[in-house]
Structure formats: C-alpha cells, structure tokens
C-alpha cells in the first residue's frame, strides 16, 4: 500500500471550491441560504434593468439631431442637451458673449483647484482671490475693454448656480462662526439675539425665506426703491446657511475641553487671542465633516431659486423642456443635470476627506 507523498504540492492545494473566483463567490455571495436568495434576486433585477437601460441610453439613442428626428426612435434623445446647451448653461447671457461666463467659470475653477493645495494657503492666496473675483465680476458685467454691459438680471444658468453657491458658502461661514461665538457669549443681549436668530432661521424652510425675499420684502421698501432680485435671493441663502453653520460650529466649540480655555487664560491671552489662536483652529477642524455636509446641501439648495423665477441651471433646463419641441425628453435632461450636480458635490466631499486627513494631527 502506497500512501500519496504528503509533501506533494498537489495535495496541499485547497479544494477548488474554497479558492479563486468560486471560493470568493461562495464566501461572500452564497454563504447562507438568505444571502444566496438575495444574490439571485439582485442578479435578476440587474438583468432586467441594466441591459434595457444600456440599450435606451447608448444603442437606440441619438446624440445631436433636430427634435423631429427624436420622434421616430425608441432610445434616449440626448440631442436635447447639445441643441440647447447655450441656453441651459448660460441662459440669457447674450449669444456672442458667452465666452465671458465660460472664462469666468474656468477662472473660478482654477482658483478653487489652486486653493486645494495647503502649501498655497498664504496671504498671497487672498490677493489671488481678490484679483480673480474682480476679473470674474468684470467679465460678467462688462462695460470695459469694449465688452457689452450685461446686467445681473441676465446672469443665469450655471454661472448663477455657482455664484449663489460660492458666495453663499463664503459669506455664510464667517457669519456662522460669529453667531456660534455669540451664542456662547456671557453678554445676555448678544446671546439672546444670536439664539433668536439661529432658532428662527432654523425653524423655517429655505423656500419660505426665498418667498419672503421675493414677494414680501419689496412691499416694505419705499415706492420706487427696488433691490436686485438676484441679490435678494443671495442674501436669503447666506442668512439661511449661516444659521446651520452656527450650530455645527457650536458643536465644535463645546467639544473643546475646559483645559484649553484655562491654558489660554494662564498664559495671559485675551478673548480674541484665545479664540483665534487656540480654540477656533481646533474646533473648526473637528467640524469639517458636518460643515461640508451643510455646504453640500447649500449648493444643492440653490436650485430652489426656481420657485422665485431665477434662471439657475435647473430653471433653464425646465424652460427648455416647456418648449413643445422638447417637452417629451425630460428624463434625458434631468439625467444630465444629475450628473452635473454629482460631479460638483463629489468633488467637494472628496476634497473635504483629503483635508481632514491632512489636518489630522491626533489629539
């Protein structure tokens, strides 16, 4: 009787069902009867959904045809995007001048990318931003270097969305920090004011604030005085976002151990110095994730200006859809918008994770 050689590699191999693809499948997808059932159900669903979607979106679809050509096909009519792209992206900006908002947005994107690198966080960054913002404003408004004047009422589409979001965030953040500090203040008047403000704003939806800014507020102004519609919406968005930022920052402030304040006191720092040098840098670092959450939702909330007839990128798309020629292709248009919003939001949350990792000094 000959025993098989124990040392032979063949006999050391685990059973085929435990390794490789099959092993992984058994281990992860079919390791119990309910998981097997789930896997099968999901596979069936995918089989039902993915190929038809793929066929609709890519095989039977058309990409750049007149609206009439879309009538005869079963697939997606992506033509709605290229055929209306200048209105969807730039709205009422005069036709021949659309390179201006395009360039302004590119400039903004460049500045944002430049600012991502923490090595660039110096005084010069502030100067770059000031120059950039002035350049963007000039590009949008015009009136110099032979550029035609384009008043704010015609700023629409994607630049409007970005503008409302960017200025909303940039102005709301410091305001929110002040409100959070005010809420912690020992001075009763300031404290009450901040608490009332924060709770009042948090108690109403953004839609009602926008309505107030666009419908009620003008009635209180003296006759003949009107304030720009875009500006009113912008202020409403800033006020709204600031209240939420304030509460998040307050969370960070409360997480600071007592010892930090005492240590600051013991080396003789006054209130301003304590906050600026010791407390806020630490507190703001803690609250990066929830702040980004708020900024993301603020970005998406800008689309609510649709209800006060501002032409952000969502509204320009909706207007395109109310042209009878294109009415039937709302699915395609909304998918395009979803992708646009996703790219922006994903970039923001991605950056926040990177920033968190870089700033993580351990505590």
């Amino acid at each position: 009787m000959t025993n098989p050689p124990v040392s032979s590699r063949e006999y050391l191999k685990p059973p085929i069902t435990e390794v490789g693809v099959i092993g992984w499948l058994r281990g992860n997808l079919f390791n119990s009867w309910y998981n097997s059932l789930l896997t099968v159900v999901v596979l069936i669903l995918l089989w039902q959904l993915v190929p038809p979607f793929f066929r609709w979106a890519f095989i039977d679809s058309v990409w750049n045809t007149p609206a009439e050509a879309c009538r005869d096909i079963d697939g997606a009519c992506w033509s709605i995007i290229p055929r209306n792209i200048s209105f969807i992206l730039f709205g009422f900006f005069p036709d021949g001048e659309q390179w201006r908002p395009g360039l302004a947005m590119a400039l903004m994107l460049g500045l944002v990318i430049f600012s991502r690198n923490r090595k660039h966080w110096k005084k010069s960054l502030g100067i770059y931003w000031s120059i950039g913002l002035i350049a963007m404003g000039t590009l949008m408004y015009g009136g110099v270097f032979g550029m035609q004047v384009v008043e704010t009422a015609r700023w629409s589409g994607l630049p409007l969305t970005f503008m409302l979001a960017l200025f909303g965030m940039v102005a709301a953040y410091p305001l929110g920090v002040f409100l959070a500090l005010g809420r912690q203040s020992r001075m009763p008047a300031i404290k009450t004011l901040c608490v009332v403000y924060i709770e009042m704003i948090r108690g109403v939806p953004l839609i009602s604030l926008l309505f107030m800014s666009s419908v009620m507020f003008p009635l209180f102004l003296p006759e003949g005085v009107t304030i720009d519609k875009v500006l009113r919406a912008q202020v409403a968005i800033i006020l709204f976002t600031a209240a939420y930022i304030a509460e998040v920052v307050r969370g960070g402030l409360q997480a600071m151990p007592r010892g930090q304040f005492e240590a600051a006191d013991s080396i003789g720092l006054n209130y301003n110095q304590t906050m600026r040098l010791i407390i806020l840098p630490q507190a703001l670092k803690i609250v990066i994730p929830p702040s980004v959450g708020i900024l993301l939702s603020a970005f998406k909330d800008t689309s609510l200006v649709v209800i006060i007839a501002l032409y952000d990128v969502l509204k320009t798309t909706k207007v395109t859809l109310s042209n009878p020629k294109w009415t039937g292709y709302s699915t395609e248009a909304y998918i395009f918008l979803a992708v646009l919003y996703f790219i922006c939001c994903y970039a923001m949350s991605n950056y926040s994770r990177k920033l968190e990792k870089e700033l993580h000094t351990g505590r």
Partner: protein
Amino acid sequence: MKMSRLTVLVMILSLLTAGFAFAGKDLDAVKKKGFIQAGVNGGVFGFGMPDEKGVWKGLDVDTAKAVAAAIFGDASKVKYTPLTAQQRFTALQSGEIDVLTRNATRTLSRETQLGLNFVTVNYYDGQGFMVPKKLGVKSAKELGGATVCVLPGTTTEQNAADYFRSNSMDWKPVVIESTSELAKTFFAGRCDVLTSDASQLAGTRAVAPNPKDYAILPEIISKEPLAPAVRHGDDQFRDIVDFAVLAMINAEELGITSQNVDEMMKSNDPMVQRFLGVIEGNGAALGLDEKWAYNIVKQVGNYGEVFERNVGVNTTLGIERGLNALWTNGGLMYSPPFK
C-alpha cells in the same frame, strides 16, 4: 453765497411740484430710464418664453414690445422680468416692473383689491377638455365617470369640480404637479380626459406621439380673459398701454400690416390717416409721438400677425383664432375708433 432757510425750502418745494406738474409718475420714470420693465411668464410657449438663444418670444412679449414702440419708437427697449404666479402682482405693486404682460386673468377681485388696472384683453382663453378620439366622445356632457388629468391647486381643478357637479356627473381627478408629466401621463392612457386652458391643450396635443388621435371638445367651461395690467396712480400710462394693445387690433381692422404700413401712409382713408398720424392729433392726446401707432405696426405687427406668429395655426401650438378673431369674423377683438 449765503441762502436763507426760507429760500432753500422754497427751492425744494418748487422742485417737488415741478416733478408733479408734468406727466404721471410712472410714465416719467419709464421715459427717464429709457426702457420698459415688463413682467412676463417664464415658461409658457407662445406667450412668454426665451428661445434656445435666450431671446424672449411670445404674444405677451410682443404686447410689451408694442408699448415700448409706442413710447420710445423702438420695440427693443424692453427688459423682461420672468415672474411666477405668486410674484406677479407684488412685482407690479412694488414698482419692480412697469407693466405686467403675463397671461393674468382679469377678475373683479384682482381689479379692485390689488391696486392695479387691467387694460384691453390681448387673449381670450378658457378651460377645455381633450380626449383620445377612440373614446368616441363628442361633448363634455358625455364625460360622466371619467378619470381626469389635472394640475393641482389651480383654478383649473376648481373649475372642473364645479362643472362636473353642476352637470351631476361623477369624475375621478388624477392630480399631477408638472405640465410635462401631466401630458406624459395622459398620452400613456392613465386618464380618459385632460383638462386645462384651451391654449395649453393645443400645445399639449402638438407634442402627442400622434396628434391626430386626440380631439379637443367644443365646451369651454370657464372664462379667462387675459389682459396686461398696470398699477394705480398713472392714468396716462394706463391709457398708453391700453391703446398700444388696441392699436394692434385697430390695425388689423383697417387692414394695415407690418408689410404694407408704408404704403398705407399714402392712403386717402381718413381713418387710416388718423391712425397712422398723417392727420395729427392722436399722438398729442396720448402724450406720444404722432408716429406711435405706425411704430407699433411697423416693428411689432397688427394683432393678427402677432397671433399667427406666436400661437397661430402654423406654429407648434396650432391655435385657431376663435374668440380672438376680429369682431367682423365672429370673434371678440374690437377696437374703439381712433379719433
């Protein structure tokens, strides 16, 4: 140089009264800034909507242009403020816009309580029904028990409920928020009837997979006279807006179009001569240039041209003149004499 307080006071007062001594305040303000701020609908095809290049088009937009042509002799001196249904009257009251040309129905309560004046109707609309032809329904009276697609929260829903109740018929409303979804639902066959303003029904039918399969029923169950509006306080400006609309109607009555208006200047007909300012008088009466009506017809067109260009049978909407035909053709468009 030293002035006594009294002198200063007198100067200020005289400046103020000088301001009031001229035309009404709205017209003055409009003339001073050099353009008209018109409140329009942001997304109703054929009435007020930007096209692919962001250029405003529509019947209401052309009405605003006519006012600009009358005041400035240049139809392009208009700026547009897109407004929602909630904003429109506030915007007019607060002075954000000078004239509202945004398919607003003239009603007693709006006219009396909102501090505004409607002028001559520029489109007679009304609520109607659309059905698939294969149902074989010929009249709205046969719609008992039908499922009806309708937009929520508008007078449309209310009107439909009233109509079915007063005719003691059952109905099942299918309420859907957006216009384009409503149309999709109806074409997919989820409801038997679609109800909306007749002008909208025509537009909806135009985008049907097969427009020939659908019929709009003859019954119109509500009155929707759509008219431009101005705020109280400047009757002269009101007159100008009113007669800008009437001038388009009168031009059609007289057979003057944007094409033949220059030849018509040589006409011997005193009515035409008075209208086009060859015989002077009308312009001075309104406080305008004598060529005001000529400018409207030349740059914007008569009512028939405006109608056909924006909503008429050769457009996607394909709406018949119907109530909006001249009174001589069985419609309601009627202009008082221009003298």
